[in-house]
């Protein structure tokens, strides 16, 4: 059987989503471990003040994800970049990913596969935005793949397209059947959702109004839940899978990671970017969230980003060799299970080991190190007091709001002004506390399907079976390695320090400092724009073929 290196030898990939967390790590992993890869065209969206080439250059110069490449190649990194990388300005939301037809006509015949990593990962995005990026964007990627000689598309999805189900989740797609068994048509679903959102916009006086956005999220979430998806993220990713699976002009391999978290070793232990799922959980549990609405024994399906990069590499290699399974799930629960209870215990132990969130007093520190978070059943456990605490704080705040020193204080009371100032101060503090409690409760509610309601066990048979077939050398470099992960070491020594360094500052409203930029010495090459040969026309609508 052809090895991973052989499968990649001289191959040309078009990759979307390079600027995202997983995209960066995967491309860096390929460049670092697979010199056989021929060329990688990075499709990147330009910004008003920054071209696609400038964005890619900035990532190569300062992103910590590229640190091993900078360390390894030093001044000669530009040579590697010019040899392996080219940048193409585009946009997943635009037809044919925003690639102009002439350029595509020249590029497509040289491509061996399109790897579509781009996507929105917010749990409650604007449904129109979610549809445009996660569904239409995927269809645009398929349109490009359909124009390549072998019509290969690797679509990065998520294990949670499984929706509201308990137990084993096999590696299959059942086109047109939603998680709760409802038959539906993905195209019609998008049409009706757009129509419903347009009605909301009209009712609220325009799409830019906050009430309109809230209304769209509400109506989209209801529709998602009616089909068995817990939120708009899983719904839009699910729709994309169903829409792609129904197409016969492309050969799709769906790569489904579960919860992608801090790197185990590549680019270096702990690397993370942005706010991922575990960030808020660790932030709250290392603080004063003593009762956490989680099901203790449910699986917390975390996978380090570099392990996902390995799994993706295997899936792409197999797709290039025309033997990839339709779905490859990259998860941990079916062979090295981590539970929410264990995550809470280890987080508390990390606090005991000296990790205390910044900005806490000595008394708080002492309390934090001796009171540990425990999971509780949201419905059954009466000790879950957060909603009640929020209501009480709100009630008290409202009592203080209308305070009038002349009306509420008896005559003859001295220092009325001082008392009024104190009451106003208390009102502000209560308001702040009430907002904090509300946002915590909102986070728990948005996480509820994944941490409380459903206990998923995603099958990873495909990636593990493929790993078993690798040579010893390739298994070390690319094999699925989660069986060997010690969750205690990972969570305490990698995940929590990684989140603390790369993610939690964002929750505290602070910036995360990247690496000191290193001058690349020149721009990565851009794909030259080409005119369409005379006499050829291209339809640009989604799903259209030349």
């Amino acid at each position, binding site marked *: 059987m052809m090895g991973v290196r052989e499968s990649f030898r001289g191959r040309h990939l078009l990759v979307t989503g390079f600027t995202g967390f997983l995209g960066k790590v995967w491309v860096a992993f390929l460049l670092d471990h697979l010199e056989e890869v021929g060329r990688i065209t990075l499709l990147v969206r330009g910004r008003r003040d920054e071209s696609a080439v400038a964005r890619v250059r900035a990532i190569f110069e300062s992103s910590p994800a590229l640190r091993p490449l900078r360390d390894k190649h030093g001044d000669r990194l530009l040579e590697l970049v010019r040899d392996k990388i080219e940048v193409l300005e585009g946009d997943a939301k635009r037809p044919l990913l925003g690639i102009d037809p002439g350029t595509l006509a020249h590029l497509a015949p040289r491509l061996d596969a399109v790897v579509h990593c781009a996507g929105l990962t917010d749990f409650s995005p604007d449904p129109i935005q979610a549809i445009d990026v996660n569904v239409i964007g995927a269809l645009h990627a398929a349109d490009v793949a359909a124009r390549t000689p072998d019509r290969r598309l690797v679509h990065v999805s998520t294990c949670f397209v499984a929706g509201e189900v308990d137990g084993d989740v096999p590696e299959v797609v059942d086109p047109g059947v939603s998680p709760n068994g409802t038959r539906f048509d993905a195209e019609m679903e998008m049409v009706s959702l757009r129509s419903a959102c347009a009605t909301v916009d009209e009712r609220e006086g325009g799409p830019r109004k906050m009430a309109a956005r809230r209304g769209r999220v509400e109506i989209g979430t209801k529709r998602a839940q009616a089909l068995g998806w817990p939120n708009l993220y899983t719904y839009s990713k699910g729709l994309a899978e169903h829409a792609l699976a129904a197409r016969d002009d492309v050969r799709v391999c769906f790569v489904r990671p579960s919860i992608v978290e801090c790197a185990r070793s590549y680019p270096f232990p702990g690397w993370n970017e942005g706010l991922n799922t575990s960030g808020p959980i660790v932030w709250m549990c290392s603080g004063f969230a003593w009762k956490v609405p989680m099901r203790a024994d449910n699986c917390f399906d975390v996978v380090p980003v570099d392990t996902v990069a390995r799994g993706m590499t295997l899936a792409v290699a197999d797709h290039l060799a025309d033997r990839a399974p339709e779905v490859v799930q990259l998860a941990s629960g079916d062979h090295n299970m981590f539970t929410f209870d264990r995550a809470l*215990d280890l987080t508390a132990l990390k606090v*005991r080991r000296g990790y205390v969130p910044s900005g806490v007093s000595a008394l708080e520190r002492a309390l934090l190190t001796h009171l540990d978070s*425990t999971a509780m059943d949201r419905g059954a456990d009466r000790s879950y007091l957060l909603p009640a605490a929020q209501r009480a704080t709100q009630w008290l705040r409202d009592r203080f709001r209308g305070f009038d020193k002349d009306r509420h204080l008896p005559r003859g009371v001295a220092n009325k002004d001082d008392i009024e100032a104190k009451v106003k101060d208390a009102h502000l503090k209560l308001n702040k506390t009430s907002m904090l409690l509300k946002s915590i409760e909102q986070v728990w509610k948005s996480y509820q399907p994944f941490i409380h309601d459903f206990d998923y066990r995603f099958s990873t048979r495909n990636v593990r079976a493929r790993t078993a077939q690798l040579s010893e050398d390739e298994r070390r470099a690319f094999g699925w390695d989660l069986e060997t992960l010690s969750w205690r070491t990972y969570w305490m020594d990698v995940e929590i320090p990684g989140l603390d360094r790369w993610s939690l500052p964002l929750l505290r409203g602070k910036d995360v400092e990247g690496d000191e930029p290193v001058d690349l010495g020149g721009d990565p090459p851009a794909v030259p724009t080409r005119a369409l040969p005379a006499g050829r026309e291209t339809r640009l609508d989604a799903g259209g073929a030349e």
Partner: protein
Amino acid sequence: MPDAALFRLEGTLSPRPTLTAAAWLALNARRVRARLLGLSSFALAGPLSAGPGLLRDPGRALRLAWSSLEGMSEDRLVVLGEVYAEEHLLGALSEVGLGLLEECKRREMRLVLLSDNLDVIARPVAAHLGFDVVISNAMELDAHDRATGELRPPVIGPALGGRRLEERLAEHGVDLRRSSVYGSHGADSVLLGAAELPCAVTPDRELRRIARDCDWPVVEGRLG
């Protein structure tokens, strides 16, 4: 010259008795209810450990103490074990014990740490001090990696010695009859009696008497 040097952790290297470690672990259980249960176990274990005459039964006291850890996760045992070793043992080691240990290292003897404490506590101490072999107790875990409250056999009791211990030492290639043994308590006397070179280190009253009777060397110094 002896090939190996056996050091008893409790007494010879550290002044803290094993019961203290068990109490500390129980008081750091995850839930407050478990901490309170741990406390009540120690209310019973205390008199058994240090009580007078017939009431005194250190072995039973320890069993009772360990039983209070029932339900504690392996993660918690390991992490708290490290914390206890670092915060409560390594900072207060016996100077005389450390001096003897250095001397044995200089003579390139195999170093064996003996303890009736849990391995999660004894191992970090052994790693820090450079011991080659650790012989200690391990908590039995259930299918969910939670402590059952029972020690995994063979159990090392407060009174060290006997055939089982010799067998465990032999598994590591250590022959008690070709070893130096350093102990501090009367309960160590059986072990010391079987060694090639026994040595009482700052001994308690009972061991001091036995050492005098048997003509064993006695090393005095400050404990912790």
